[in-house]
């Protein structure tokens, strides 16, 4: 029995006024996102037997980061307006349909395989820490949708899209709390999609945002001294003028050794290797988002193994209960 079955029973037998969204009952429509004990889940994917077996009474509530309309129903209009802002349609770069069919290889489609799995349920948005702090943040669902088009071999508007997504409330507003990856019921891993957008932006030279400058400084540090050049990170991210404005704050930190002097630099042993490694891999064509996509095969395998184990555990508990 799933959480959705339990809600149906309650609505049928206990309180007919209970409101929640549902449709497909099979994890594909994305309607029944809600919170169980504070964590966003799809009600139709959540098996209840392990919870019953543990003697736990869960608290069910509406998803976060969206206004509640009634009971477990949230107003998803801010969610949809952010999805729309991503221009979620192909822009193929020609007006007339070509005579010959455009063949896209499996390898090309693999780049956006995960993002294409999104069912727009809102679970990733529910616990997004950056959106809680900045409600205008485009957020994990919209940005994952954005990468679904940026990474599509048939789309000709990638650079324009990246410019758009590099806005004040875009890619670099993500705080990497990883709640979205944790909550997504479909394995989209929106945080990874945001990192792919960052990587594609930097590859295309769209690096005006302070977030991109911050990220680039780590690369510079790794290939020059090996370790982060921590004290220079502020002027390299925010620019000299902003850094000067922070002088008072920096001096207060410096009193406690929190502003390590940049000279002499803290250089890692054998740093020439990490420099050589940079030059070597740069020439191998695994650029931008591909650097993340290449690791997904191995990561999806551990996810599959973990989910299989969990499924077996639940089935055993259900059998015992019957």
């Amino acid at each position: 029995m799933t959480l959705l079955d339990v809600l149906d029973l309650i609505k049928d037998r206990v309180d007919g006024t209970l409101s929640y969204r549902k449709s497909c009952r099979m994890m594909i429509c994305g309607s029944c996102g809600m919170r169980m004990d504070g964590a966003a889940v799809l009600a139709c994917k959540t098996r209840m037997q392990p919870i019953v077996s543990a003697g736990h009474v869960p608290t069910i509530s509406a998803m976060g980061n969206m206004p509640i309309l009634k009971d477990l129903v949230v107003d998803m209009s801010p969610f949809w307006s952010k999805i729309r802002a991503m221009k979620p349609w192909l822009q193929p770069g020609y007006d007339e349909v070509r005579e010959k069919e455009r063949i896209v290889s499996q390898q090309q489609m693999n780049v956006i395989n995960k993002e294409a799995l999104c069912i727009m349920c809102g679970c990733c948005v529910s616990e997004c820490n950056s959106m809680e702090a900045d409600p205008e943040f485009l957020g994990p669902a919209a940005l994952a949708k954005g990468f679904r088009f940026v990474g599509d071999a048939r789309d000709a508007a990638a650079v324009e899209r990246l410019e758009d997504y590099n806005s004040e409330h875009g890619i670099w507003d993500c705080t990497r709390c990883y709640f979205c990856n944790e909550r997504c019921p479909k394995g989209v891993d929106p945080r990874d999609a945001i990192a792919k957008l960052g990587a594609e932006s930097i590859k295309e030279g769209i690096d005006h945002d302070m977030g991109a400058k911050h990220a680039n400084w780590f690369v510079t540090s790794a290939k020059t001294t090996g370790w982060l050049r921590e004290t220079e990170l502020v002027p390299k991210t925010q620019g000299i003028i902003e850094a000067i404005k922070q002088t008072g704050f920096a001096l207060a930190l410096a009193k406690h050794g929190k502003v390590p002097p940049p000279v002499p630099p803290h250089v890692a042993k054998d740093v020439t290797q990490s420099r050589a490694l940079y030059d070597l891999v740069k020439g191998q064509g695994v650029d931008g988002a591909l650097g993340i996509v290449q690791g997904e095969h191995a990561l999806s395998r551990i996810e599959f193994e973990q989910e299989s184990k969990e499924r077996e555990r639940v089935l055993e508990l259900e059998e015992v209960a019957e």
Partner: protein
Amino acid sequence: MKVAYYKGCLASLSAKELDISTQALAPLLDIELEELESVTCCGAGDIHEAEPDYYLHLNARILAYAEATGADTLMTICNVCTLNLRQANWQLKGDESLRERVNRNLSAVGVPPYSGSVEVRHLLWLIAEGDGYELLKEVAHKGLKGLKVAPFYGCQILRPSKIMGFEDPDRPWSLEAIIEACGGEAIDYPAKIKCCGFPIIQAREETALQELIQPIEQAIDAGADAMVTPCPLCHLSLDAWQSKLRATTGRDFSMPILHLSQLIGVAAGFEESELKFKRHVVSVQPVLEKLQA
């Protein structure tokens, strides 16, 4: 137990007190540290985002040098290092052709190849489980006299759980177990598993401070005397940026923030030379006075 010790950037620079207290604590818990020298920054998520292929190679290089020590554990003391290294490790272990390509590149620049035999584990996990936890009760002989300590996990030691895999990311228990074993009282509050804002504190300070305020405010309201964290980035955010919250809220929190190794160190009777509390921005003196009373 011998471990390869990767201290990361911050413990070498602005959070030296973390390295110093870890080096003092490890032998008491029967952890022999072999510090890695020929290693670099893990990229802190930033290189993963800017140049992901380079990120994988840098981390493979760290793993290769860890493997070369003969230890089967690479011990970290930072959440962000833990996630970056564990993620790369899963990718290299689980995909032979990827590992072969990375190893070819490592060999070309004179780095030993990585066979995939190392496990990346945070100090927190080594202490919370098994022998470390048994020893902890003896080590923490001076105790914490019921000090109310708010555990702050931060993000990247809990999530994504498929990569971290140590404890339930929504109901973690390891810091609480250590606080209790040291004779303190673990304070519960919802934001203990949320973000400190540090990754965007320079690029989006306003958003970051909105995140930072939650755990500090909740810990104070729950009656905490101090907070403890396993991550030097969370520490920097909670400790050094705490003063900026005064400007936005008008409240002076003065919440002492301890590294995990320092909290145990206090309970073990460490001296200032091993704790280095003078390197904190928010004074830890009220905690020490409470323990002396």
